[in-house]
Every structure is written in structure tokens, then in C-alpha cells.
């Protein structure tokens, strides 16, 4: 990349010089300080009033908003109830009880063998019809799931299988997107990693309006999104 690298750094300097030339700035140091402070400040903007409610109401709001964008939501009391609940869901949809499952610690401790579920602990393959994974959080404001990529959570699980089953704890349902970034930053600080490589915010199923502006679901990603909320744990 020898010659191009030179052109590139020339291009970089030229663009930055042109940008700076177009701006009127009295004091460069003041501007630099303003930028540094802004980047470190994480100052929140306006938070919608709809989320100024208690935790129980947030869970309801989340479920309501997720259902409004064609997701289905069910509740279980504890993680141990997940295999039967997911098997029931698949049976009701006439789907095979066979799924790829993310190697997430919160899903590992569950005894799947007691149910009819046949789960494969790995990243999804192209022909997996069903994928199960664990959310990092869920945002009540718009019924949005938050998935954080990592060794225990392949991002492709959110997109390759036709049916996506996402598990979230009721205590992980938060009000706003900003709450989510705070939690992700804190998790990052705890583990020594920066933010996850991929953060997916998922609001409903895959959809398109590209043929005559008529809304159709399931074009490239999941045709069905089922969310299981675990009340305890």
C-alpha cells in the first residue's frame, strides 16, 4: 500500500485543512477543550416521559412495544422453565424442537435434556431454522432488544435463523437507550474490554416495504421473533 498510503495521508491532511478553513473559530484551544469534554461527558439528551415509570410498568411497556412490532412475548418464572416454554412455543408454531443456542453462561446452566428440545451450543449455521440467545438488556421505550457480541454471543444468531428466540431477565429491562450504554460501559469497565465489537438493537422482525410500499416481514433476517422474559434471575 506504499504509494496509496502516501496519497491517503495527503488526502487526510487536505480534507482536514479544508474543513478547518471553512470554519470560523476564535480560539482553537477553547474548541479543543469543548470537544474533549463533550467526548468524556456522556451527557444525556432529553429522555421521553413515557419511561418515567416503575420497573414493573417498564416490563409491561417493553412487552407492549415489542408486540406492536410483531414480536411475541412470553413470561417464565425462572430460567429452569425455559426449555419447556420454548418447546411449547415451537410446537404451537409447528416447528421442530431443534435449535442452535449461544454458548452463554446463563443458558449453559439449564438442563435442556429434560425437555423435548434438542439444542446445539455453537454459532448458527446457514441452515439452522431456530436460534436461541441471551440479551444483554432490553429497552422499554420502543420494545428493543440489546445484543452484545462476544465469545458467548455470536451476532449472526440474531440474523441467520428464520426464528429468533431471545431470552431476557425482567431485571434487565431498562427505560432508555442511554441506560443501555451506561450498562454496557460499566460491563466493559468490569471486564477490562471496551464496548462489545457489535451491539445490535433489535426492534421487531425483519421487514421490507420495497415492493409497492407494502410491509412484508422476514426478508433476510428472522421471520419470527419470540422473546422470553425470565421473571427471576
Amino acid at each position: 500500500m506504499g504509494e496509496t498510503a502516501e496519497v491517503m495521508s495527503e488526502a487526510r491532511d487536505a480534507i482536514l485543512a479544508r474543513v478547518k478553513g471553512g470554519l470560523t473559530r476564535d480560539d482553537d484551544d477553547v474548541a479543543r477543550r469543548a470537544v474533549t469534554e463533550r467526548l468524556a461527558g456522556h451527557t444525556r439528551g432529553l429522555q421521553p416521559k413515557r419511561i418515567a415509570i416503575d420497573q414493573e410498568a417498564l416490563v409491561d411497556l417493553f412487552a407492549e412495544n415489542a408486540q406492536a412490532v410483531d414480536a411475541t412475548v412470553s413470561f417464565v418464572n425462572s430460567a429452569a422453565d425455559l426449555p419447556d416454554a420454548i418447546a411449547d412455543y415451537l410446537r404451537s408454531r409447528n416447528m421442530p424442537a431443534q435449535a442452535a443456542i449461544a454458548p452463554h453462561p446463563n443458558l449453559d446452566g439449564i438442563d435442556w435434556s429434560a425437555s423435548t428440545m434438542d439444542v446445539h451450543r455453537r454459532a448458527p449455521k446457514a441452515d439452522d431454522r431456530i436460534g436461541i440467545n441471551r440479551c444483554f438488556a432490553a429497552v422499554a421505550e420502543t420494545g428493543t432488544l440489546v445484543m452484545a457480541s462476544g465469545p458467548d454471543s455470536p451476532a449472526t444468531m440474531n440474523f441467520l435463523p428464520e426464528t429468533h428466540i431471545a431470552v431476557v431477565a425482567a431485571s434487565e429491562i431498562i427505560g432508555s437507550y442511554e441506560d443501555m450504554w451506561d450498562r454496557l460501559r460499566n460491563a466493559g469497565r468490569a471486564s477490562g474490554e471496551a464496548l462489545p465489537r457489535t451491539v445490535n438493537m433489535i426492534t421487531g422482525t425483519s421487514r421490507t416495504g420495497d415492493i409497492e410500499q407494502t410491509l412484508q416481514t422476514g426478508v433476510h433476517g428472522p421471520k419470527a421473533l419470540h422473546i422470553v422474559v425470565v421473571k427471576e434471575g
Partner: protein
Amino acid sequence: MTVHNLTSRNFREKSTSALEDAVLQGNLVKLKDNFLARRTKAKASLPEFDDLRDASVVIKKHTIAHLDLYLEAFEASVKASGGQVHWARDDTEARAIVLEICKAENAKTVTKGKTMVGEEIGINPFLEAHGMTPIETDLGEYIIQLADEPPSHIIAPAIHKNRQQVAELFNEHHPHLEPRDADDVDGMLADARTVLREEFLKADVGITGANFLIAETGQTVIVTNEGNGDLTQLLPRVHIALAGIEKVVPTLEDTMTIMRVLARSATGQEMSSYTTFSAGGRRKGDLDGPEAFHVVLLDNGRSKLLGTPTEDILRCIRCGCCLNACPVYGKIGGHAYGSTYSGPVGAILTPSLAGLSEAHHLPQASSLCGRCEEVCPMRIPIPKMLRHFREEEVASGMAPASARRGIALWAWFASRPGLYRTMTSLTTGVLSRFGRKRGRFSSLPMAGAWTSTRDLASPQGRSFQSQWAKRPKS
């Protein structure tokens, strides 16, 4: 510095033929019942919507006032998270950068998420000319790639096609699949899923655009509904994100404020199905994701807008809302504009990036009704900018001679109030005498351009100024 396949000079011919295109007219009629009506509903269900618009404007103004510093910060953050940043002064440099990355990968299949910058720089024909196969994976972009046409709407690129045309294209290009009837939209969707899934799996490089570049974290953000953008950037070995330099925002918090107005303005959704933040390449222990992550920052004329009357267009977040609201776009569609960017925003961006002489018809294609500014989430004063370009057009002698002479004549009278009053009251008197009975004229000397398509109302009585002069004084 140019916009790929620019044909804005042919605006008159193209808009005339668009008006005669029955399929296009049928599709455009649905715009206001769909996108625009849904936007109104989404706005109504979020009481803070207008305050969020104001907040978004403040964020973008601050960012643009410190654009060089935020671009430097973004570059440093991308590097810190293991990605690479490339700077392109113009379309030629951007294409060369993409090509070099693809060549180093020995790429054959290159999947693409929807990217307007990709359209702006004409990346597809360029990669094809170098022996690679670029595959558009957004359904609308895939349809127009099969048809070999440019997008006609920022967020709904195939809006000019109806289901019959899509079925014909699919049947022609998917000979190995069952032929589809025009009413079998589900079937066409299934076919697109089948065909493109194979491409996703064999792609060597994935190219997407970016809705935001976050200076704080070095993340690129894509906002989509289909999930194609994610499969494009997750499955191949290399992800390239193409973005204009104006896409940078300071922090995650700033991004979320703007996000709250983006989908609501675009499709009327509260949130698009998939909003994805990406930083760097695959990390230790990751089970998927690209090994390499590149961001190409494109200037292509953007920096020269700073400090000019059209600087505010750099706030644009490409929601397409102004197209949906525009009565002119609603009649002629996107292709008439002859540019990657159509509608009101295109009438500003195209002459801004490519030069007014290339696109001076576009700022004329407006009644200055102001609906674009009214709905714009970024409150961009588009009508003011259109007037600016119209002034430039006259000042630089690009306007037709007859229009310039007419305006000069009017200006000569207007700067002589006494003469102006005499002339207008004479004209009013004559027109009103001849036209009072019918109330309108179906033809008039020197007004043929008007009366060829509609009648001119005749004045009733005396002119305003003479009535004003004779009003009872208190």
C-alpha cells in the same frame, strides 16, 4: 469531484416523461398515505418529538462547528478498536481505496448493504470493470440492480417499480427458480431470500454505508429493516463502511437523541428493526464477525460547503422525509432529478457537490411551499437554500435569457414606484375589462407558458395599491 452518472441537465425532458409514466404515477400516489401518514402518527405518539428535533439540530451544529476535531477523534477511536480509516478527497480516490482493499483480499463476490455514498461514487460499475461481482442485498437495491437503474428514493430505492415489473425482473434473472406471478409478493420475497443468502455466504468483502460515525467510540452505525446490512457486514472476511465526512457525531448519547427522530421521520417507525453499532474487527474468542474493518471517509465537495449559505445541508441524516412531503417529487419521482440524491435535499446536495452549472434546473423545480423544511427532522432551511441557488443562477448568467430580461424589466419598473403603479393599474384595468365577464382567460399574449395548461384568473376591479390609496382614513 462529481456524482456518479449525473444527468441533472436533462431535468426538463426527464420530468416530462416521468409525468407520462402511468406506473410511476400510480406508485407515487401511495407516498403520502404510507411514509408521510405514518410519520404523522409517530410524531403524534411522542410528545417530545419537536423538542428532540431541536436538540438534534443543536448536536449537529456543534459537531459541524468542530468537524475537523471530531473527525480526528473518530479516526483515533477507530484505530484504538482495531479498525482502519481511509480518507478520500473525491469519488476517484474513494473507488481506488475500495478496490485496493478488495484486491488485497482477492475478492470475487462483494455483497453490499444500502449505501448512498456507494451510489454517489459509482462503486458497482467500477468493481465490475475490475472483474468483481458486487451484489446489492437490500431488496429495493437488488431490484434496481437487476433493472440496471439508479435509486429513485433515498430510503425506498425501487419505489418507481410496481409488483408486475418486479415479477418480470425476478422471472428473467432467476431462471432456476419457479416463475412468480405478480400477486405472489411473498414468493418473490422468498426468492430474494434464497438467492441472496447464497451470495452472503460466499462473499469475500461486505460494503455498507453508515448512518452515524461515533467519535467517542469509533463505531459505525447502520439503521436497517431487512437485516441484509448485518449479514453484509458480519459474514465476509472484510467489512468496508463508506461514509461522508458529515456523518460524524460526538457521543453515543448524541446518537440516541438523533436516532429518536430518524426512523420516525423516515418510515414512521419508532425504531427501525435493526440498529447496529460496529467497532473494529473480530476479537479474541469471537465466533463470528469480519476479521478486518475499514472506514472510508469521503469528502467529495462536502468540506467546501462550510461557511457557505448551504452549510446546513451537512446536517442531513438522509431520512427521505422531504421527498415524501414534496409536491414536486410526488409528481415526477426521483429519476427526473438525474442524481443519486433527488427531491428537495437532492436539489441542494447535487448542485452543492457537483457544481450549479451541472444541476441548475433542480433548485427551480420547487414551488417554495416549505413543506420540506416543515417536516425535516434537522430543520434544514431548504427553501432558503433553493432561493440562494436561484440567485446564483441569475447572477452567473445560467438562467435563460428571456427569464433574465423579464426579471430585469420588472426590476426596472419596481424601482420606479410611480411608473410601477401607473403600469399595474393600467394593466389591471384592461385585463379586468376584458375578462370580468368570464372571470378568466384561456389565452393571453406573452403568457402562453401559463395559459397552455391552465386559465389565468382575471382581475376583479381595481388594483390593490389603488384601493389602498383610496381607503377611508381614520
